């Protein structure tokens, strides 16, 4: 057993800093690179791509990235774990194998974790009395059944552990929890058991700290943000994990940003619910047991974590089509900028109403004034400029399209000193809404396979 492993966060979301994973594997020693690519909206986008081309449906950015880092990872024996396989981890693996062949890499094993995509199985599951009701509202799935775009089970760390046990140097998964990506190498290297709840919770919390990349190492830091050094070269967080579950959060020495008790605290509270019950497929972690200490410059120790048994359910994330939206902006200048923007909004709304168009919602915000804090925003004294931002939503795509055609006319038929319409007409965009549900763990099973070069 290794006495310690270093797990590096490479991406906090699909679209994150492209240089981060390269820095993580080149600027200092690490054993694992973990990359989270999947937000909820991502799965339905990928599902659409796969429907057009059966070889797509994964995070395409991953392939040129692997091409850049694979030789280093092979040379230094760094394992890569990512959920960038999206709705097609098998094709993602094949694309990586093609890259590896081109690079002349030998003896590469890629672990592929699938089985999370249950879209086609929904009728069968429902015939087995698995209702898939909305776990937040209690509504029955029938309400949206004919509009479903994707349905994926969140698997945890164990299928990744299986792939690592089979010798995988790269593990590509579909819908896996962000925390599972980091927990898996700890289970694998330290031989943790399936009921060692405190350790599993410790690895889960390390995963929570790593899952948003630079947001734990000085990015988006609301404390003394001006004191964060060299964000230009921000180092993403690294977890130094120990067999007993104690973890040090740090970053490479030759990098910017900052790892402090405060930056880690901010990431701990990010997107959590009841802190005593942080539920994952692997365990229930208690965030009120965490002890943090500054253990050196850019080193924070995370210890004393308590966990409890996992639940008998997986979470399922489903997405369904839910109408259309469009957004448009116009910029009004001094004098009376806000007054002009408000008048333009009034005129536009009256015209939409005269056309008899139906919208579920029309929302007006004034950027530079109240789009962040609404009624809490302080009054402006004669601002230099104000951006009018109007959004509409409707089941009727035609109404949304027509809204897009009513915006530009305001330039010549509304209040004066207006600009900023270079982007053209706002285009209707499909709204994808979420349907979270629970499914008994016994009803689905992850599929782990190995592709070999």
């Amino acid at each position, binding site marked *: 057993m290794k006495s310690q492993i270093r797990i590096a966060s490479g991406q906090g979301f699909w679209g994150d800093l492209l240089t981060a994973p390269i820095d993580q594997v080149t600027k200092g020693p690490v054993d694992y690179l973990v990359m989270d690519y999947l937000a*909820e*909206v991502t799965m339905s986008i990928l599902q659409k791509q796969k429907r057009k081309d059966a070889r797509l449906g994964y995070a395409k950015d991953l392939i040129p990235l692997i091409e850049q880092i694979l030789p280093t990872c092979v040379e230094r024996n760094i394992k890569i774990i990512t959920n960038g396989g999206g709705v097609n981890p098998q094709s993602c693996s094949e694309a990586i194998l093609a890259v590896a062949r081109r690079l002349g890499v030998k003896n590469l094993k890629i672990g592929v974790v699938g089985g999370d995509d249950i879209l086609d199985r929904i009728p069968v599951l429902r015939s087995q009395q698995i209702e898939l009701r909305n776990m*937040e509202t209690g509504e029955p799935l029938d309400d949206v059944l004919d509009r479903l775009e994707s349905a994926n089970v969140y698997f945890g760390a164990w299928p990744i552990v299986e792939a690592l046990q089979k010798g995988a140097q790269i593990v590509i998964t579909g819908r896996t929890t962000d925390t599972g990506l980091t927990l898996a190498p700890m289970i694998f290297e330290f031989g943790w058991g399936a009921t060692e709840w405190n350790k599993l919770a410790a690895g889960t919390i390390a995963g929570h700290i790593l899952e948003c990349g630079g947001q734990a190492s000085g990015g*988006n*830091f*609301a*404390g003394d943000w001006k004191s964060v050094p060299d964000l230009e070269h921000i180092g993403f967080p690294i977890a130094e994990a120990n067999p007993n579950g104690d973890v040090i959060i740090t970053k490479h020495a030759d990098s910017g940003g900052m790892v402090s008790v*405060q930056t880690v*605290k*901010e*990431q*701990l*509270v*990010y*997107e*959590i*619910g*009841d*802190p*005593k019950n942080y539920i994952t497929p692997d365990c229930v972690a208690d*965030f*009120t*047991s*965490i*002890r*943090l200490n500054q253990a050196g410059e850019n080193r924070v120790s995370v210890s004393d974590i308590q966990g409890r048994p996992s639940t008998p359910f997986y979470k399922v994330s489903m997405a369904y089509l*839910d*109408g259309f*939206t469009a*957004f448009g902006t116009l910029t009004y200048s001094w004098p009376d900028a806000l007054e002009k923007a408000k008048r333009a909004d009034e005129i536009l709304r009256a015209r939409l109403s005269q056309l008899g168009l139906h919208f579920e*919602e*029309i*929302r007006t*915000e004034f*950027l530079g004034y109240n*789009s*962040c*804090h*609404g*009624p*809490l925003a302080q009054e402006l004294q004669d601002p230099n400029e104000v951006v009018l*931002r109007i*959004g*509409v*939503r409707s089941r009727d795509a035609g109404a949304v399209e027509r809204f897009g055609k009513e915006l530009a006319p305001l330039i010549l038929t509304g209040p004066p000193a207006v600009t900023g319409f270079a982007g053209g007409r706002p285009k209707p*965009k499909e*709204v*994808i*809404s*979420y349907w*979270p549900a629970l499914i008994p763990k016994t009803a689905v099973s992850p599929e782990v396979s190995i592709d070999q070069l």
Partner: protein
Amino acid sequence: MRIQLRQICHARSGDKGDTANVGLIALREEYYPVIARYVTAERVKKHFEGIVLGSVERYEMPNIGALNFLLHNALGGGGTKSLKNDAQGKTLSAALLRMEIETEESIKV
């Protein structure tokens, strides 16, 4: 003593569906009892009048000197459905730091 939360706290917010969460963190250990006493779920709900349309839940995390607030029905439908510029509630953390509390005790800020 009148204090704006900005003087004694930092915060981060995010989203889950149409619910936003704001983690309010005391800048110093001695500020935690102050926010635990004065920043109640009711006061936060009143602060966010017109923004948070549902209920407000509060959870305590004394181990890291933080409170976690769940703001229900706060994001205009959430996700891609929301028409808000801040559809994910990323700036609601800063909005909570605008809140002022009146303390009986005097606090060194």
